[in-house]
């Protein structure tokens, strides 16, 4: 009897997780194995893949050093600028804003997500091109300002695209903050600034870490923003990768880069978790 219930219980559990497991296996594990196999292969004469066993693709990785460097430099920098812009906004929303309008203001942060990022980035192409902001600047005397197709434009696009993703987790962590702590601190004579640094900031760090790692990880695979605002000159790994599949038709090398990219992401994530553990003093931190 007990055995029967146990078997039944197992059957139920198995059928609950079966679809998800099958999905993960077919569309995550299998493609990743395919990438691994391809990454030790060779480019076929007309492009594509032909079987081989060579590490030549991995040996060729340094030829994309600039793309890796762009990504590993601009992704954290972009995430950090996002943080600097996002924190005051999140703080204002969670602590200062009139509760009557709070929900409205928070929704307004999310609403941009409902317009396609592509369309919004295209709007930036116009705003940063010579007929947009540079044109306005030339009216007040700053002639020949170049923004579009520079690293600066890509950085701006990154901050724009990912700002809401940074604001939200920080807002959530600040909102949970017990306001009585702030009052107590003020009652005990602490200046607002020291209250902020000794109470508010430390307590919001989990949100900050979530935002930073979320944005950094997404940026590591970014393709569109550099493509549209960088004029095909500013290359992220994502762009190098797309280029290898859609122009050079070098699937094995593309696979090797993809594998390396995944490893870099895992690496960044592990570092972020380490830092988060240290900050929180516990291992109970969910970054994603």
């Amino acid at each position, binding site marked *: 009897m007990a055995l029967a219930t146990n078997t039944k219980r197992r059957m139920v559990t198995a059928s609950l997780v079966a679809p998800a497991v099958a999905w993960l296996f077919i569309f995550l594990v299998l493609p990743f194995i395919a990438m691994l196999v391809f990454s030790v292969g060779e*480019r076929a*004469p*007309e*492009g*594509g893949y032909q079987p081989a066993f060579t590490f030549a693709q991995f040996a060729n990785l340094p*030829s*994309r050093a*600039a*793309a890796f460097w762009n990504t590993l430099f601009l992704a954290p920098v972009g995430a950090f600028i996002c943080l600097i812009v996002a924190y005051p906004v999140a703080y204002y929303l969670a602590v200062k804003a009139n509760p009557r309008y709070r929900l409205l203001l928070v929704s307004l942060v999310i609403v941009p997500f409902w317009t396609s990022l592509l369309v919004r980035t295209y709007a930036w192409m116009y705003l940063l*091109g*010579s*007929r947009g902001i540079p044109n306005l600047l030339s009216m007040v005397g700053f002639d020949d300002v*170049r923004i*579009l*197709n520079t690293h600066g434009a890509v950085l701006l696009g990154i901050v724009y695209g990912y700002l809401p993703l940074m604001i939200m987790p920080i807002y959530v962590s600040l909102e949970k903050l017990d306001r009585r702590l702030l009052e107590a601190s003020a009652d005990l004579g602490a200046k607002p600034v020291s209250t902020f640094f000794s109470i508010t900031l430390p307590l919001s760090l989990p949100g900050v870490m979530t935002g930073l790692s979320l944005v950094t990880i997404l940026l590591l695979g970014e393709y569109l923003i550099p493509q549209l605002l960088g*004029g*095909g*000159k500013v*290359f992220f790994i994502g*762009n*190098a990768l797309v*280029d*290898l*599949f*859609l*122009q*050079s*038709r*070098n699937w094995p090398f593309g696979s090797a880069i993809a594998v390396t990219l995944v490893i870099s992401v895992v690496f960044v994530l592990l570092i972020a978790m380490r830092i988060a553990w240290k900050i929180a003093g516990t291992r109970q931190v969910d970054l994603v």
Partner: protein
Amino acid sequence: MPKHYRENAPITAAQFMDELMRLKRGSVSRRHFLGVTGLGLASAVLAGQTGLLSSPAFAEDLGKQMSIATWPNYHDPATFEAFTAKTGVAVEVNVFGSNEEMLAKLQAGGTGWDLFVPTNYTISTYVKLGLIDPLDMSKLTNYSPATETARFTAEGTISGTTYAVPKNWGTTGIALNSKKIKTPVASWKDFFEVAQNEADTRTIVHDYQLTTIGSALVSLGYSFNSVKPDELAKAEALLVKVKPHLYAINSDYQPAMRAGDAWMTMCWTNDGAQLNRDVPEIKFVLGKDGGEIWSDFYAIPKSAANKPAGYALLNYLMDPANAVKEHIANGAPTTDSRVLSLLPKEITSNTIVYPPDGQLTPLEFGAAVTLTDPARAEVMARFKSA
């Protein structure tokens, strides 16, 4: 086909005879004849089909939509609108910046294109890889081999089988804004020098290995088609050196040139003609040290989902009456003497479109090897990610 045919209105006796003669000559299908003359309606009613009442007589053959893969600014949108009005088939236009990109898409499968525009040097590779169909010439009644220029059509036919028919020919030259750039630019050598000086951060090169690497090779005194490792290495060094001075790496340079964001670009004949027509200070010059002469073709992918529509559009485009409108709109020189005779003087005398023969002499056709050569592909990819 005039609109009233589609509505099954009666036609005049003269039109009827004309259509009958065309049917006898075999230039129209029986279905077309029946549809046009209204006999289709009668026979459809007899056969118990009523669907013909609501749609053009041959629409069921062609489906509702098709897709073409082509190049930026390469067609008159009105052409496709007219085709849709005539046949009921909506045309989706996909634009690509290089032959490599088209090939990559076809190799990965599932493009959905029913017609596409490959350049002369790629066709042998498409045939070798089995990616395109031999053309059924009986469906291309408007195509006339006799009036075509052999120099521009030859590469569409491989061991006697025609796989592609020409769209037009052209050159790859330099477009520059003469109000902004005072240094004379007459060669690719000049191009890369000015790009680093007067046109600093104002120059565009193609996102396309053939022309970008080819022009760099030419500027160094090598062949446009070179695949020699040492020559490619020098071209790569030049490109990487120039890269910080570029405005963009993009095959669709018209918007930036028109907006004044860019002052100089690698440029195809048709874009040069369009830019010069609308913005007269933008001039188009051919490199006296060399460069590319090309012809673009129409071909039908083996994987096309709607081949009847692909053929119908191709045949429509081959009709000189339509081709001449396309020519006037996009400015690429024709390969067909029938079209040439219909062109207005201001186009045939436009030296951007029809340059003097002497200027064409140093130019080279792209070579098939450049499409598949791994070194050229890798040089381009390294240049872009540098």
